[in-house]
């Protein structure tokens, strides 16, 4: 116990800075604190609280599973434990520290009002196994949020239980499979365009389908001719991300949906980018049959380590009968009740089953509903407008410094896409991303989407101010200028971060996943 990291390897420190172990007695550098693993801290036998000695005989109920030796827990006092995690948090970067321009992730501000409402005891201190008549307010909140999602998308129903985006995709595809099987028409293939989200083919394969790719056109959208040429009776569904991962609106969506419906297939829309069109476009009007909504993106609930995802799925009239259990419904007597397996035979006989034990991510429902109610319809429309405005501001402020592959085609939606075309020989997208760390920003999404060489996908979100965007743009421009000038120091960035450039290849080829032995 308390053995130091046996690999002995420590990432390199900043340029021109001696290893602090040789510079200071403590090993820290100013207020930049070095921090060992928690298992390397403390002393055996130390404990933050005093436990009573067990009284009486131990019951032998665990038989051979009873522990024979004490667990190898680190021995720390409470203040040591608090300091450990606070020190680690100071090495982290978070949305509360600065912009998080990760394209496709929608890392926007998490309003504090959401947090206040989610902590109300009527929402925060309840349990999913409580009798439903003791939690009518919570059920009403779920139903109110569900109504908003159905209204905003122009669909017929919504399954609230999926826990995140890819879980929602699976829910949508299971509804499609149930609908096809119910008419005795099981099909084998799901078409996924190159410009779709990466999780789409994985979900289709997981749901038991064979995935076929549809190419993108030169302007970064689904190739309608290639898609319609492939539409045969074995196609169960098409999965389309709209707006797509190139930050472009799929203008042919309605024509695609009509063509898919004409051969008896369904249209799944990946709604991860709904924040760009919320209040402006209703996917139901475009012929979508199922779409998940990332509450943790469009509706501002925390994610990326700050909170769980939540991926309700809106459904067309054709798919609604197959939605998963449980769900809340207002009965003919005006009373809210939950439809579970006991009532399903009469109330909802075609359900494909259950996606989750309970009713979904309640803590995310209360936050998303707060966000919707505090914005109102006009505010939500402004969310989409400002998200698109900010992305286009970034695109047009940098398209003379970096190659914008679809810049000629017109405005983008909520994210600006650049490529490494035009960076001088020897400089890569990774160098720009690492340089951004020195500038004090979290890097953008890199090397995705795959259809663009050396992609840099920047999603500023609507919550960044113009002043904040100008600072980011100035940093990006300076990095592009340094690359054009052949600045060799950019090749080894970051220089000012707590750690130098990490060896990602070594980490992937020979990962060290244990701290000892």
């Amino acid at each position: 116990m308390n053995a130091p990291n046996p690999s002995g390897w420590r990432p390199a420190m900043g340029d021109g800075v001696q290893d602090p172990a040789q510079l200071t007695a403590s090993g820290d550098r100013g207020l930049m604190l070095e921090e060992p693993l928690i298992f390397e801290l403390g002393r055996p036998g130390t404990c933050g609280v005093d436990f009573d000695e067990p009284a009486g005989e131990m019951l032998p109920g665990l038989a051979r599973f009873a522990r024979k030796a004490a667990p190898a827990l680190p021995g720390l006092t409470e203040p040591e434990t608090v300091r450990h995690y606070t020190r680690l948090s100071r090495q982290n970067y978070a949305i509360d520290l600065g912009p998080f321009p990760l394209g496709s992730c929608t890392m926007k501000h998490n309003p504090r009002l959401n947090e206040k409402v989610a902590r109300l005891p009527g929402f925060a201190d309840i349990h999913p196994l409580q009798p439903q008549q003791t939690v009518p307010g919570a059920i009403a909140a779920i139903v109110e949020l569900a109504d908003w999602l159905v209204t905003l998308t122009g669909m017929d129903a919504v399954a609230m239980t999926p826990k995140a985006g890819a879980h929602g995709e699976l829910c949508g595809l299971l509804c499609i499979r149930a609908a096809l099987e119910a008419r005795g028409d099981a099909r084998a293939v799901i078409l996924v365009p190159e410009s779709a989200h990466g999780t789409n083919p994985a979900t289709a394969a997981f749901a038991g389908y064979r995935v076929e790719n549809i190419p993108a056109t030169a302007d970064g959208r689904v190739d309608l001719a290639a898609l319609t040429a492939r539409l045969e009776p074995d196609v169960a569904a098409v999965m389309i991300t709209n707006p797509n991962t190139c930050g472009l609106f799929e203008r042919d969506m309605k024509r695609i949906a009509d063509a898919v419906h004409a051969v008896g297939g369904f249209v799944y829309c990946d709604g991860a980018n709904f924040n760009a069109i919320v209040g402006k476009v209703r996917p139901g009007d475009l012929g979508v049959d199922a779409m998940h909504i990332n509450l943790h993106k469009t509706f501002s609930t925390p994610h990326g380590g700050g909170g769980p995802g939540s991926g309700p799925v809106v459904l067309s009239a054709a798919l609604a009968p197959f939605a998963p259990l449980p769900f809340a419904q207002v009965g003919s007597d005006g009373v809210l009740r939950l439809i579970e397996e006991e009532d399903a035979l009469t109330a909802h006989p075609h359900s494909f089953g259950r996606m989750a034990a309970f009713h979904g991510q309640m803590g995310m429902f209360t936050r998303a509903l707060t966000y919707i109610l505090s914005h109102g319809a006009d505010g939500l429309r402004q969310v989409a407008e400002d998200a698109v405005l900010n992305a286009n501001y970034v695109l047009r402020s940098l398209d003379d410094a970096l190659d914008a592959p679809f810049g000629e085609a017109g405005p983008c939606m909520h994210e600006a896409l650049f490529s490494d075309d035009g960076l001088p020989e020897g400089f890569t997208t990774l160098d720009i991303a690492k340089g951004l760390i020195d500038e004090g920003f979290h890097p953008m999404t890199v090397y995705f989407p795959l259809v663009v060489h050396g992609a840099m996908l920047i999603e500023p979100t609507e919550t960044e101010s113009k002043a904040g965007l100008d600072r980011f743009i100035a940093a990006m421009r300076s990095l592009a200028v340094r690359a054009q000038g052949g600045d060799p120091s950019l090749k080894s960035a970051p220089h000012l971060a707590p750690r130098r450039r990490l060896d990602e290849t070594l980490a992937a080829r020979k990962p060290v996943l244990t701290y000892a032995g």
Partner: protein
Amino acid sequence: MTTYYTQDHEWIEVDGDLGTVGITDYAQGQLGDITYVDLPEVGAPVAKGAAPCVVDSVKAASDVFSPVSGTIVAVNETLADAPELVNTDPETGGWLFRVTLSDPAELTGLMDKAAYEAFVKDL
């Protein structure tokens, strides 16, 4: 022995009815450092255009498509411990799998070295 190339940047070196398959130097350069190779099972049948093998790099996981139909008869076991061979020696020591050709006529649609080099130049 003749080597053929595909538009998906695989090469196949054919000796009688035995083909050795790998990815081209251009492909490894585009993928970046290879971190893992998911090899097919020996004895498995494979169809032309199917993806029996996946190459993981620091940037992406990429399917390797079989240029021909046949049966997998050998895989390059050294890649389990040394995936970097695909980067350093892509067109010889970094080969991926060997396949017996069930239909040698499938080779006619592939490119020779000169045609592939011209194809890559235009990308």
